[in-house]
């Protein structure tokens, strides 16, 4: 192997039909057999660049060189033929199909006219042995945990004889031990000769894994260097365009009266991941209670109980001393509940509706926004414009559809709506998943501010840095039970949380 680049981007620009310039003359090279990190905030153009490499998008100008030759990649199929595979941030699996069906989809082994299911299973077993990624080939994807789904996603990419594997923010949904395991596997793959493109905005991970980093900012190449030649602060500067502000650090404050008390709650649910088996917890006024746990440890069940979308099978929940039995979401919201849902476009808003409509929905029956049966559209619009300013929502205007916003800006608008009611109790479920550092920091400040004003906050997050930054106390969920209750002391590290999250230890 020489130092000749495996892939070279040469002056790639991309302008979308609506005039957005996503990439502006980006050029850099990737050497074979390395783990190459691509960093940048949300909307910096990382995903677009990777989509271009994978054939999902076409550049407006510029070219891609593979082994020194300019190539056209018009579709993922061609990308696969050229040995490029991709693990998507939002998995590209078909939920109702089995693991093996998902993996062989598009290049199915045949026996006569039929799908050779034995061969498919064998292929999956072989792959999973080779790359040390254990999955059950016959499981239906819908029933798998996120981490397992990611394994399937990786196997699916690897099943096509790839030379280059693109991973788009692969750790966003993983616990630290899962992340560590993933990194081990990725190092194995590199050792086996694979070139890995690793997209992330977590410096720690980039440092831990990659040997070379490329930084994109606002569609332009901001920096490109071997990791050995650049320190973290320099990378952060390249990412943010300026020095990052001092990090917020809370912890340890328990103040105020118990606001939400969950006692002895069991929940039977169809999905085993949502079941709860005897939960006791209290959220006090003025504190942020962090909830950690591997995805599918009962977080969803807990949220649906606390938001009134489900009723406990046994046990009780009180809200400021009053039992909530029989109260639905609407009644709880009237009592002062707010909720930042994990899936912001699925539950947090309506893509097709305007920002005004998304921002005011829920509050629209208040006297401020309606007279009799009618809405006060002017007042709604004015209020939304204020939110847009206060929450620094970058948008074409208050009457643009929510779909026109990037994930981070949409989340800020949704947060603006949820904070606007001055809630007594806020459930923040993965509040900053997949959004850029600046937006995340902004939301962190809002949550801290709410707690400071006496609000009770329940923070559910897979991002342990976030958890340790914001929480006053931490509970860890495993398989529907609380396995640890920890004070967020300065010495608490992600590594200490790991064993609890995987159910290896229990302290409760």
């Amino acid at each position: 192997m020489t130092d000749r680049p495996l892939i070279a981007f040469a002056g790639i620009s991309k302008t979308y039909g609506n005039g957005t310039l996503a990439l502006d003359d980006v050029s850099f090279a990737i050497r074979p057999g390395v783990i190459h990190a691509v960093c940048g905030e949300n909307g910096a153009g990382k995903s677009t660049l990777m989509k271009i490499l994978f054939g999902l998008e076409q550049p407006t100008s510029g070219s891609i060189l593979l082994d020194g030759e300019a190539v056209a990649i018009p579709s993922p199929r061609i990308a696969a033929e050229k040995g490029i595979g991709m693990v998507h941030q939002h998995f590209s699996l078909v939920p109702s199909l089995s693991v093996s069906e998902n993996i062989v989809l598009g290049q199915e082994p045949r026996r006569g006219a039929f799908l050779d299911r034995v061969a498919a299973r064998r292929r999956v077993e072989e792959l999973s042995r080779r790359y040390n990624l254990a999955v059950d080939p016959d499981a239906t994807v819908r029933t798998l945990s996120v981490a397992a789904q990611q394994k399937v996603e990786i196997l699916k990419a690897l099943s096509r004889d790839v030379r280059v594997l693109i991973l788009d923010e692969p750790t966003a949904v993983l616990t630290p031990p899962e992340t560590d395991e993933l990194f081990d596997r990725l190092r194995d793959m590199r050792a086996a000769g694979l070139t890995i493109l690793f997209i992330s905005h977590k410096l720690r991970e980039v440092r831990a894994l990659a040997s070379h980093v490329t930084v994109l900012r606002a569609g332009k190449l901001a920096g490109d260097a071997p990791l050995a030649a650049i320190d973290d602060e320099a990378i952060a500067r390249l990412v943010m365009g300026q020095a990052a502000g001092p990090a917020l650090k809370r912890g340890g404050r328990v103040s105020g009266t118990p606001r939400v008390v969950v006692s002895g709650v069991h929940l039977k649910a169809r999905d085993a991941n949502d079941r709860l088996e005897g939960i006791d917890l209290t959220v006090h006024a003025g504190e942020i209670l962090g909830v950690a746990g591997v995805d599918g440890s009962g977080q969803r069940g807990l949220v649906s109980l606390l938001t009134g979308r489900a009723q406990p099978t046994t046990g009780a929940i009180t809200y400021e001393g009053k039992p909530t039995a029989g109260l639905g979401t609407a009644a709880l919201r009237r009592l002062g509940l707010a909720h930042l849902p994990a899936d912001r476009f699925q539950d947090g808003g309506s893509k097709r509706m305007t920002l005004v409509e998304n921002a005011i929905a829920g509050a629209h029956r208040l006297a401020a926004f309606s007279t009799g049966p009618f809405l006060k559209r002017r007042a709604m619009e004015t209020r939304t414009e204020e939110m847009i300013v206060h929450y620094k929502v970058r948008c074409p205007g208050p009457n643009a559809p929510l779909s026109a916003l990037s994930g981070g800006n949409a989340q800020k608008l949704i947060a603006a709506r949820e904070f606007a009611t001055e809630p007594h109790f806020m459930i923040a479920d993965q509040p900053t998943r997949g959004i850029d550092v600046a937006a995340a920091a902004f939301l962190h400040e809002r949550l801290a501010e709410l707690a400071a004003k006496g609000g009770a906050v329940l923070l559910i997050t897979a991002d342990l840095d976030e958890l340790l930054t914001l929480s006053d106390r931490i509970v860890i969920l495993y398989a529907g039970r609380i396995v640890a209750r920890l004070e967020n002391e300065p010495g608490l590290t992600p590594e200490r949380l790991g064993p609890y999250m995987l159910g290896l230890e229990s302290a409760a």
Partner: protein
Amino acid sequence: MIRSAFASFVITAVLLVLVVGIVLVPIALSLPDPLAVLDTFVFGPFRNPRHTGNIVEMATPAMMCGLAVAVMFRAGMFNLGVEGAFFLGGLATVATVLLVPLPAFAMAPVGILVGAVVGSSVCAVPGYLRARYEASELVSSLMLNFAALFIGLFVVNYFLRDPAAGAMVSFRIPAEAKLPKLIAGTRIHLGTLVALAACGLGAVYLFMSRAGFEARIVGSNPSFAAHLGLPIRSILLRSQVIGGLIAAGAGGIEMLGLYQRFSWQSLPGNGWTGVVVAILARDNPILLIPAALFLSYLQVGGDLIARNFDVPSEAVGLIQALVLVVVTAQAIMRNPRLIRLVTGKKPAAGQAQDTKAVEGSVA
């Protein structure tokens, strides 16, 4: 929103002329007087006030059925019961004015009201089954349309049939019950004003009222509605009851406006027209008015050439089918270059990259 919709409206109009030209020119050329055929098709409807009146008469039920469809579609309900509601609404209205002794002034309003309530069941029952049991409203409404037809025919045969008449028709609708004509020389009746007002009210409901806002939230994203704690089931049901009332009321208005007796022996097809009009107007109540007028204009023009020349009436049907496909063709209608040509500005973000071509799988 209205402006971009208007742009597509202009493109539609231009396109239609092209489509009609492409189909009609060869047909016209096979006839002795091709120019007259085209001329009649395009200008005929405006040459005689009666024909212009026909456009308005025909657009009246189309607007209301379109409104009924739009109200339900906006709430995310694929309810096709408008057809049956229109039929049953017409029947119940006529039954009321025939069977219930009412003072003359009350006949029309009470009749239409009763018709609206009875007829709305064809939309409301699928709505209830969906809200209560999550049973596909598409199937149940499609089936109930036919059930409504045969139940209606049974009612006519056994309770309303005029034995002196030679066909299965009801007794004559009393003159006092009929809706007053508005313009001499045409059949344009009070119902047209009602329909226009209904479209206006529909716009107010959908875009300016709390109830309509909530319905649109449910329609555009039920999970979001659940997040907000909106009472989804009752909102769904309410939308379908409102839709049913409008459609069935339209049936009553049509009967008292244009008919002498209840004489439908099969589903009149206005429900399908309503679906077409609503899709053309992109479920916008105000745009329903031009959409319905436009469709009716095409129809009247087509009727005129079929009547006056040897153009088979089926050719007119073919033209209309083609028109429907073309005017909803996003490849043409949402072509950014065309939109820029019409509005003179760039299209809004998100509109041009709407690449998901195939929607509408049945939940």
